[in-house]
């Protein structure tokens, strides 16, 4: 009976939380595709999709139905299992990130304190890095299984790009970890609630992290893997129907997740700006119950803002050339991140020694 002495309500709570988070993420991703088209249109003086429903808000549903009802084609010479595994892996890796992101404080419901974070593992950032790197497998496997030169080149590009930019990303984060002193995302957000946001301490680190996150998501200035005019859509060229949809979806979920990570690491996560969250929690009445939901809303707003910036950049700057991409990654971002690390480290040592040797 030792097995059954498990904390079943906890399991249920986590399952419900995971379901809510995953489905919310999928919903947001659905509307991010719509948002992308709308933002692109508005930045280019067009009205954008406006036919399906009022202001076109049913457009993502129409797109989804279209994707589902299209013919599923698996090329004859493709490796069938890998071909199916590719988009699945991309999707799973994209969704797995949301496990460690703190979405809000604690909700008191059914006499339980529910923490709005699936799991606050103490190596949260490392976990995110591991999962994000796994996303590359989706692209690699898909590109390889397509048995097509363009897809293969594209997946190789994706892999090399991800490896190059993960380095700079990790180095820029090391400086942040110097400042915060731990790797848990939940702890980091709690620190930022009482202190300044980390962006104040790490502006350069944030810039590097932001650029690298854009490269990791294969967003436009760095979208060489799917460069449609050179590789005609790259790794998802042979894909059709919902398998293609999964790849496109995974990209948008990655974007949401990197926005959430950026918000949590540098912009206070679910911390409501200019408001003392603890005061809100300790107050009585409606604000006490609403506080965690306000925090979730704040985080979502921050995520939406970052997604908008992603799109804004996408529709502003053209794609880098491959050598420019590599130069930027290896010759600019990594040295900058190292310098940032050294400066942060020395300042912290100075501070520990009370600014004198």
């Amino acid at each position, binding site marked *: 009976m030792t097995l059954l002495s498990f904390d079943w309500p906890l399991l249920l709570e986590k399952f419900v939380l995971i379901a809510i988070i995953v489905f919310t993420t999928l919903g947001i991703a659905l509307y991010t595709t719509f948002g992308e088209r709308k933002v692109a249109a*508005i*930045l280019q*003086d*067009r*009205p954008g999709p406006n036919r399906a429903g009022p202001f076109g808000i049913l457009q993502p549903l129409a797109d989804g139905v279209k994707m589902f009802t299209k013919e599923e084609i698996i090329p004859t010479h493709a490796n069938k299992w890998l071909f199916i595994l590719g988009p699945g892996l991309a999707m799973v890796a994209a969704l797995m990130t949301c496990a460690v992101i703190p979405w809000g404080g604690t909700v008191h419901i059914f006499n339980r304190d529910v923490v709005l974070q699936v799991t606050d593992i103490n190596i949260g950032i490392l976990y995110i890095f591991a999962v994000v790197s796994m996303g590359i497998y989706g692209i690699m496997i898909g590109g390889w299984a397509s048995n097509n030169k363009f897809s293969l080149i594209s997946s190789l590009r994706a892999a090399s790009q991800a490896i190059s930019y993960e380095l700079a990303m990790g180095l820029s984060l090391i400086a942040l970890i110097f400042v915060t002193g731990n790797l848990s995302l939940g702890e980091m957000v709690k620190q930022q609630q009482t202190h300044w946001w980390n962006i104040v301490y790490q502006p350069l680190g944030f*810039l590097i992290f932001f650029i690298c996150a854009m490269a990791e998501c294969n967003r436009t200035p760095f979208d060489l893997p799917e460069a449609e005019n050179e590789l005609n859509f790259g790794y998802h060229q042979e894909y059709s129907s919902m398998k293609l949809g999964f790849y496109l979806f995974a990209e948008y979920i990655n974007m949401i997740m990197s926005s959430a990570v950026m918000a949590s690491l540098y912009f206070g996560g679910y911390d409501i700006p200019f408001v003392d969250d603890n005061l809100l929690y300790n107050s009585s009445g409606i604000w006490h119950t609403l506080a965690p939901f306000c925090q979730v809303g704040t985080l979502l707003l921050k995520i939406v803002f970052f997604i908008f910036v992603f799109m*804004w950049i996408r529709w*502003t700057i053209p794609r880098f050339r491959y050598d420019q991409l590599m130069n930027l990654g290896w010759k600019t971002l990594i040295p900058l991140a190292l310098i940032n690390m050294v400066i942060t480290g020395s300042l912290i040592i100075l501070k520990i020694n009370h600014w004198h040797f």
Partner: protein
Amino acid sequence: MQALTQRVKQVDRKPMTLLERIYLWNIVKGMFITFMHIFKKKPTIRYPEQKREFSPVFRGLHVLNRDEEGRENCTACGLCAVACPAEAITMEAAERLPNEEHLYREEKYAAKYEINMLRCIFCGLCEEACPKDAIYLSETFTPANFTRKNFIYGKPDLLIPNVKTESGEFAKAKGM
């Protein structure tokens, strides 16, 4: 050499300044420009609800004209078919019978008059060639269709409604 326009910009291949080489500042400038486009007026005409005004000389679908008494103007002289550079027009002439004076203005008329809308280039030369003011290009499009055969427009498709007998349709066709 004199510049052809006011907007000529000399290309200089000076080495980039530090600010330009950092590239970030230029990205910020570009992003500012795109951001300003959010507030710009959109030139889109939302088609089925809004329609663009045609120019007064627009050349659209053909119309075979009738005179004020509702008689067909066309005498099947064939000048439009000769003038047509795309050879889209074919016709067959027939002689007016004594009891058909209210239908045809002159003693010869077109028994069959066909325009192939897939061949037609809407140049308007038929309109200019016509000595009887019988053919005009209107301000409408040729609607889409599923078969090539249906694009060969005959007399029933082309003739303007009769003022006398179908005044309602005539007014609608005139856009009044």
